[in-house]
Structures are given as structure tokens and as C-alpha cells.
């Protein structure tokens, strides 16, 4: 059985105004893979994600999720399989309380109340937001909103998790918590982001989109090692790979070194080899 494979074949999407957002995109994602889709603003990342849950209809090409080819008939089944977390949690949390929001999907699946309650509790537990269950979403902080948004999707027990820019707007601690959460999810994950450091941490495979075409598809480290490719696609290495500023005095920005030598408590982060990094 093709166990939750995601297969996109010659996918093309033309918006009604004539913008061709995707041009013959093809790839195949296996069960359990964690894949990043990266690219410049307007490269077509969000458009691609919206095809995976059948919100947009392909102008040409096919999409297969597990055993089903995406079509009118299989739409409901596919939406049950693919859970999508959108960029702005305010778009996703539309019910009066966190509980109602997380219960929205299971209730639409027609489950009975006891099952729904259990699913909601499980999902909230997993994202560490159980105590928020009776709060209205507009009183949550940005990081809390994001975690609840993930829970609204987890409660539907998706086999494939699709996330559009999950770390946008989060502070470092909230971002770290979200990453830990996503790392624990053992099904397929497909993520878009401009946060390439997150990609580096979370995804072993990366697909690079540029103006609607797939420019590269391979192991994340390989892609981030290819400077020419990154430059052509308006991308950069993740900062973690750009080297730290202390050890590369040749960098062009005018960062004055601190007057007295700094030693961080763990003595790391400020290594003193001095080869040159470009960026």
C-alpha cells in the first residue's frame, strides 16, 4: 500500500488574473518524511500548500495523497488525512473558546461527544495548552495561539501535517517550544518558511521553489551548501551556517567589538578561529 505518500505530478496553477503561480511542479514525499518548501516571497509556496488539501484546484497536473487521487469525491477523505496549519493563527481560531476551536474538526467528522472530548483533551495536552481550554482565543499570546492552532489540526488525527510559516512572529522561546512540538510529531510534515534555521533543525529534506518551478530537491544540508543555487533563488544560508560574527572580522557590517573581552557563561558561541565567511 502506498502508505500516505504525497505525490505531486506536473502541477500547474494559474490564478484567475493570469498569474502563473506554479509551473509543472512534481515531487514525491514518503511517509514520515519532514520536508521544507522554501523560496522567495511570491515563489508559490502558499499556493502549493493550498493544493495539498484541495482548497485550490489544479489548472493542470495531479495530486495523489495515499491511495487517493485528489478529486471532488476524495476531497473529504483527503482533508481528514492532511491537516493544515495556516500562517496567521487568527485566521484559524475562529470559535468562541479554545475548546470549541479544537473540537471543530472532530465535530465536523461526525464523532460522538465523548470521543470529541477525548480528542480535544489529547490534542491540547500534546501542545501543552490544556489549561487554556476555556479561554477565548483573543486573550491568548502569540505563542499560545500558535500552539492552539496546531492542536486544532492534531485533534483530527491527520497523517500528514502541513504548516505555512509556523514560526513567524514568535519570540525565541515560543519558537523553540513550537519546534520541540513539531519534532515530536512522527507523521509526515511539510513546512514552508523563511526561517531557514528552523528548516535546518526540523527538516532533513528541502524543496526550493523559484517563480513557480522546483529549482532543487534534496537533503537540506546539501541545498544550504549550494551558494549559487541559494543566490539564484533569492535565498541565503541559515544564520547558523553563516558563522558567528566574532570569529569572522571580515564581515562587512560595522560591529565594534566589545571593549572588554567577553566570556559567555558556557564559554561557547564566541569561538575564535578566523576564517572568512561570506554572505
Amino acid at each position: 500500500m502506498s502508505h500516505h505518500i504525497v505525490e505531486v505530478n506536473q502541477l500547474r496553477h494559474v490564478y484567475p488574473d493570469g498569474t502563473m503561480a506554479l509551473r509543472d511542479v512534481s515531487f514525491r514525499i514518503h511517509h514520515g518524511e519532514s520536508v521544507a518548501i522554501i523560496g522567495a516571497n511570491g515563489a508559490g509556496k502558499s499556493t502549493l500548500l493550498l493544493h495539498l488539501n484541495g482548497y485550490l484546484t489544479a489548472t493542470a497536473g495531479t495530486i495523489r495523497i495515499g491511495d487517493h487521487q485528489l478529486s471532488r469525491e476524495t476531497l473529504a477523505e483527503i482533508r481528514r488525512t492532511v491537516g493544515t496549519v495556516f500562517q496567521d493563527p487568527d485566521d484559524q481560531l475562529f470559535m468562541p473558546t479554545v475548546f470549541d476551536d479544537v473540537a471543530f474538526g472532530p465535530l465536523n467528522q461526525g464523532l460522538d461527544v465523548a470521543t470529541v472530548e477525548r480528542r480535544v483533551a489529547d490534542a491540547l495536552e500534546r501542545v501543552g495548552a490544556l489549561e487554556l481550554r476555556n479561554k477565548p482565543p483573543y486573550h491568548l499570546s502569540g505563542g499560545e495561539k500558535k500552539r492552539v492552532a496546531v492542536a486544532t489540526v492534531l485533534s483530527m488525527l491527520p497523517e500528514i501535517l502541513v504548516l505555512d510559516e509556523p514560526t513567524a512572529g514568535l519570540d525565541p522561546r515560543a519558537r523553540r517550544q513550537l519546534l520541540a512540538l513539531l519534532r515530536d510529531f512522527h507523521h509526515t510534515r511539510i513546512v514552508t518558511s523563511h526561517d531557514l534555521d528552523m528548516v535546518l533543525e526540523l527538516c532533513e529534506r528541502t524543496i526550493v521553489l523559484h517563480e513557480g518551478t522546483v529549482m532543487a530537491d534534496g537533503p537540506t544540508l546539501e541545498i544550504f551548501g549550494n551558494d549559487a543555487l541559494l543566490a539564484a533563488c533569492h535565498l541565503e544560508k541559515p544564520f547558523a551556517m553563516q558563522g558567528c560574527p566574532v570569529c569572522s572580522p571580515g564581515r562587512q557590517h560595522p560591529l565594534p567589538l566589545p571593549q572588554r573581552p567577553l566570556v559567555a557563561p558556557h564559554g561557547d558561541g564566541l569561538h575564535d578561529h578566523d576564517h572568512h565567511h561570506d554572505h
Partner: protein
Amino acid sequence: MLAIDGNLLDFKRLDLLALKESPVHRLDPRAKVLTTLVFILCVVSFDRYELAALLPFALYPVVLLALGDLPAGYIARKVAVVLPFAVMVGLFNPLFDRQVLLQLGPLDIWGGWLSCLSIVVRALLTAAAAIVLVAITGFPAICEALERLGMPRVFAVQLLFLYRYIFVLADEGGRVARARQLRACGTKGLGLRHFGPLVGHLLLRTWERAERVHMAMLARGFAGEVHTRRQGRFGAAEGAFLLGWGSLFVALRLYNLPHLLGQLLTGN
């Protein structure tokens, strides 16, 4: 009427009050909604010159305020802010109605003054009842109650969405207004030539947001029907609340308590 920028904060605060725990918070919302409606009907059914008999009705908001552990000063301020239209109209009464209805020592009191004061008291009572109702119930619960009392589902869902996105969009509107104001260099206001694109732009963003919300709903299996959890049961406590207050209101409507009390106190 809507100076929403300042009011929005208030709005959030009022909403937070509904998350408190108290005996009146726990009552089924239907009992509270119905009781409040009876209250308002009784209050507005008095004669236009009636003043004293209205006063005992203050008991209802005051008791709920106390039982619900609500901040009295805040509620009072909110109630005071909402008076304008009724009071402005009421202020015309003394101009047109100069019939002497009452004498306090040497003072002749016109019917217009009585009815004007009566309007003020009515406005205070009805506004206080509405605001206290929201503070001890919360908006979503009120919607649910009304739905269970027969309000159409489509409308209930519409109310919930509206309520949810007020916070998001008012923030957005506030930011737009602020960004404009900071570059306006003290020039007051903007003309229609600027207003159209500004508000139009906000409208387009709103529309796009609605599209994204719809997308998010579909992605979670939405098929035309919004399901909500129904909690709460109309039990004995609810029955007692409704009946108790209801009969008190009717009694207060029929018998002028302050009058009787006054007669007792003044030996009149």
C-alpha cells in the same frame, strides 16, 4: 456613538469578567437572559412620570454585581457613558411639559422634570442590566442561550464570528488610523479623497481575511454547518432564579415600594 478605540479596551475587560467563577456566573445563561428581559419590560412599562417606584429595581443589578464579584466602579462608569441619546431627548421634556405635578416645599416641579428624571433612571437601569448580564454571562453564552430560545442558527453563528473578529479588526483599524495620524503632521482629519482608499484598503484586507478563514474552516472538514458544544442545563437553581426575580419585578411593578416606605417613615 462609537468611539471604539477607547471602548475596545473596555470591551475586552468586560469580556474577561465573564470568565470569573461565581454562583451567578454558573447559572444557565437562558435564566439570566430571560430574567433580564422581564426586568427591562417591567422597568419600561411604568408611567412616564413615575420615578420613585423605579428605584427598587436597582436591587437587581446591584445584587448581581455583588454576587458576581464585579468591579462596581468600572460597571458604573460604563453605564454612565451610555446615557447620551436618551438623556438628550429627555432634556426636552421640561421645555414642553410645564404642568406642575409636584411641590417640594416652595418648589414647583414640572411634569417635564419628572419625566426627564424618569428617563435618566430608566436608562441607567436598563443599561446596567444589560452590562451586568454580559459581565456575568459572556457573549458566546448569551448567543447560545438565545439560540436555544429560538434564535436562528445562521444568525447565532454570524454573531459569534462577528464577536471573534471585532478584536482582530479593531486592532487593525487602530493601527491604520495611528499610522495615518503620525504622518498627518497635525493636520486634522482626512478628506474623502483619502478616506476612500484608506477604508477601501482595510476592506480588501478584511475580505482576504474572510477568505483565509473560510479556507481554514474547509481544511477542518467544514460542510456548511457550524457545530458548537452545548453546555448547561435549566435546572432548579435556574427556575428559582427566574421565578424569584420575576415575581419580585412584577410585585415592584404593581406596588410602589418607596412610596409605602416613605409613608411609613414620615408617618404620612
